[in-house]
């Protein structure tokens, strides 16, 4: 796609901003095209197609950075953006300085990760794959009564930014995601379960492994009962561990630390987790669907340990927090959207796997709970203190084997305590899309967690 017009437009906006009285300025243009189909009862029940774009602006005056955005792109919008951004500069009194930056050695940053397969993503192709998948899900068992939700979607589109320091960036990539949720009923009991796939080539979607996991996620729940309240050894499956870690990932941000909102403040270089636990940020991880060579501020990213054998190596910094701390940006200054300010995010995260397979982990713990889903993470947690109390689902492990599914239980603990109670990681790493990128994470064993259930005795 030729984006000359947009490049010129945002370049003009930056020039105009300097004339308007900003000392420094940056503008970005983002465009995104997407397509989605939904399948229901043997039909394509809905089809969506979109093309949206927008411009985000930030300008600096007297040490304050004011921002504005629009999706209504024309000349009058430019005046609106400059005027309101200036008004915003005037009311701000942030004591920490934000920066507009250009690495003199890398003024031109380009990351094009287009698969070349995007043209395969047609209505016809997605319908064919979706209808076939729905049919196969229904064929998995007579107990599966419906596929309540099945969507296939894809998206692509460039993101360009220009600033008064001379930075030019260009990024583009594409993706496809498939999600299905099935409903089963047996003896009057209803259970639901969903599974996803993501990639860059629709022809690489293999329904067989997808169906195998979905089947387990739905039908495996029948026969569930609660458990007796108490302390249990717990195996958190990859998705459950990732959802928990991601909920508290903000604690690793230097911003949270500087604002007194993270208990990890002042703990860089000290032990915060069990010896066997290592998690690294790998922006360019080979297996990752999307790689991040640079962040939204134009800083090159780098591979680094977040926690190395239990030691909290270094927090994540952007230019603003790094300046305040007297250190360098770690290349984690990302905007969530063209309209958003620069925040701090991790990209792809990799948990170092252990030696044991999942079955060996069960055998090793002997008795305990295997948790597959943690629910209510947006509500049942205290993001600062690390306390959580969550509704969960999974299985009871007895005599080293999965005994039966469990339901109507909650797990309550503290994130920072859980990090210290990790006693093993499995060899069963999978990729879980979460946050900006993906987590590559195996099952994680916790020595004990507090489980509430309403069963009197086993």
């Amino acid at each position, binding site marked *: 796609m030729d984006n000359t017009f947009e490049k010129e437009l945002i370049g003009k906006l930056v020039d105009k901003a300097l004339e308007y009285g900003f000392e420094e300025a940056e503008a970005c243009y983002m465009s995104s095209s997407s397509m989605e189909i939904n399948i*229901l*009862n043997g*039909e*394509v*029940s*809905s*089809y969506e*197609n*979109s*093309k*949206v*774009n927008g411009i985000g602006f930030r300008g600096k005056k007297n040490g304050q950075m004011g*921002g*504005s*955005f629009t*999706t*209504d*792109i024309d000349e009058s*919008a430019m005046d*609106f953006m400059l005027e*309101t951004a200036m*008004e*915003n500069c005037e*009311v*701000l*009194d*942030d*004591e*920490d300085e934000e920066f507009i930056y250009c690495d003199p050695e890398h003024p031109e940053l380009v990351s094009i990760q287009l698969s070349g397969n995007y043209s395969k993503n047609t*209505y016809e192709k997605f319908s064919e794959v979706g209808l076939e998948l729905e049919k196969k899900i229904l064929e998995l068992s007579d107990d599966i009564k*419906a596929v*309540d939700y099945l969507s296939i979607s894809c998206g692509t589109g460039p993101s360009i930014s220009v600033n008064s320091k001379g930075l030019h960036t260009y990024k583009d990539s594409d993706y496809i995601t498939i999600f299905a949720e099935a*409903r089963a009923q047996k003896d009057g009991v209803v259970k*639901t379960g969903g599974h996803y796939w993501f990639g860059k080539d629709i022809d690489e979607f293999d329904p067989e492994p997808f169906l195998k996991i979905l089947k387990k996620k739905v039908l495996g729940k029948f026969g569930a009962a609660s458990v007796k*309240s108490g302390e249990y050894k717990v195996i958190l499956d990859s998705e459950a561990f990732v959802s928990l870690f991601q909920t508290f990932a903000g604690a690793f941000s230097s911003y949270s630390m500087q*604002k*007194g*909102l993270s*208990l990890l403040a002042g703990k860089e270089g000290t032990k915060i987790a069990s010896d066997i636990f290592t998690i690294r940020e790998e922006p360019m991880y080979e297996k990752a669907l999307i790689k991040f060579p640079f962040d939204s501020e134009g800083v090159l990213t780098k591979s680094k340990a977040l926690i190395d054998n239990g030691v909290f190596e270094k927090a994540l910094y952007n230019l603003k927090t790094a300046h305040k701390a007297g250190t360098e940006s770690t290349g984690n200054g990302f905007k969530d959207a063209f*309209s958003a*300010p620069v925040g701090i995010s991790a990209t792809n995260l990799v948990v170092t796997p252990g030696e044991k397979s999942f079955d060996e982990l069960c055998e090793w713990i002997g008795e305990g709970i295997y948790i597959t889903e943690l*629910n*209510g993470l947006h*509500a*049942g947690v*205290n993001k*600062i*203190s690390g*306390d*959580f*109390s969550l*509704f969960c689902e999974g299985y009871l492990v007895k005599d080293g084997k999965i005994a039966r599914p469990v339901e*109507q*239980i*909650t*797990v*309550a*603990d503290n994130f920072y305590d859980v990090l210290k109670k990790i006693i093993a990681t499995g060899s069963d790493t999978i990729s879980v899309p979460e946050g900006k990128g993906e987590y590559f994470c195996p099952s994680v064993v916790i020595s004990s967690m507090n489980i*509430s*259930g309403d069963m009197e005795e086993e």
Partner: protein
Amino acid sequence: MIKDATAQRIIEAAMSGGADFAEIFEEEKKSSAVGLLNGRTIRASSGIDYGVGIRLMLGTNVVYVYTCDKGENDLINLAKEAASALKSDSLSAIREVEALSKSTPSVLVIDPLSVSKKTNIDFLKQASDYAMSFDALITQVSASYATSNRIIHIVNSEGFNKEESQTRIRFSVETVATKGNEKQTGRIAPGTMRGYEYINEYPIIDKTRECCETAIRMVNAGYAPSGKMPVVIGNGFGGVIFHEACGHALESTAVGIKASCFTDKLGKQIASPVVSARDNARIEGEWGSYMTDDTGRESSDLLLIENGICRNYLVDDLGARRMGCEPTGCGRRQDYSYAPTSRMSNTYIDNGEDDPADIIADTEYGLYCTKMGGGSVDTATGEFNFASEEAFMIRNGKIAEPVRGATLIGKGQEILMNIDRVGNDLELSAGMCGSMSGNIPVTVGQPTIRVSSILVGGREA
């Protein structure tokens, strides 16, 4: 906004592929927000979001396309592209576009967008300064203020030509109390569709004090116990239980495909006889209100449950096609990037007869949740969970020690049947609801209620 003649041409292009219904949804939203941390203004933003969505239906099949472009040719081409996704030969009639009719649920004396950011900041500073000097345990105060005006314009093949203007204000104050490694928060986050006069009348100091008191109480509190017990849920945001555990399962998005635990329950008992509940979108000035929904239909004041009997579902136009009934005017969406679905507005359990003090006095042992956090639900199984932000134990009919970290879990169908007391102190409270058509403003509400038994997930046995 798009002119009538242009709209007519877009609708014609959209109907050219055999759709039996086509709709244009045009939206322009202006927004302004500021954020403070410990008394300093660290965020200030402004924006304009404009876009158009075109929706086609053929039976229960839906095609939805959207864009930020506003040129007539771009929109006609987009409509044609959408039409090509439908493979039907039969052409349906198109009614001529009616004269534009306008509505608003906002009651504005002072337009919030006419008030300067500096004034917004001064308002938040009152809360911030008060909280910072309230007690040494209060270590952080964040405050935010956001206002927006959203104009939606809907034209469809049935001749609808509606425009609605929605102006909203929401602000929040969050205080953090610290004791050693322990940090707990207190929070208020009111929302309104009234004008800036709402802010001028708001008792910000009293409410900030309560917020500080909650944080301090919770940082000093022990953990909640685990197990099944009677739970008294306070009024206002406590209604999130009903929103999650029942409201979502009454939406045609779930009922229309028989994926809800309340499918085929009209006229049947789904709640205890002391429970009546409504979804009323027509309360002027209320945070979750609208007079015209995002599909151009007039909103309604809908009786959902009457003395425990299920009376109505929340049905949007697609749901109506699936269920063979009339839509109730509840088609909503976050913005033009979402096709509409059936959603709630101001949803609440109606007043009962009990004095809230009697409900506590009649409870020998249990949990009293005074401030609820958010939660989620699986509408097929009815399983829900939600967190309490402030809670106390009830011992011998009296409010006893505060406890933290309690999560309530259960199945919606069972909990509704287990509500045994309903107070007479109904209060509404603003929230955001996330679902298939995005995040939308809703209010939840209820009087003080008691559930005879809920599983509480805490940390003490």
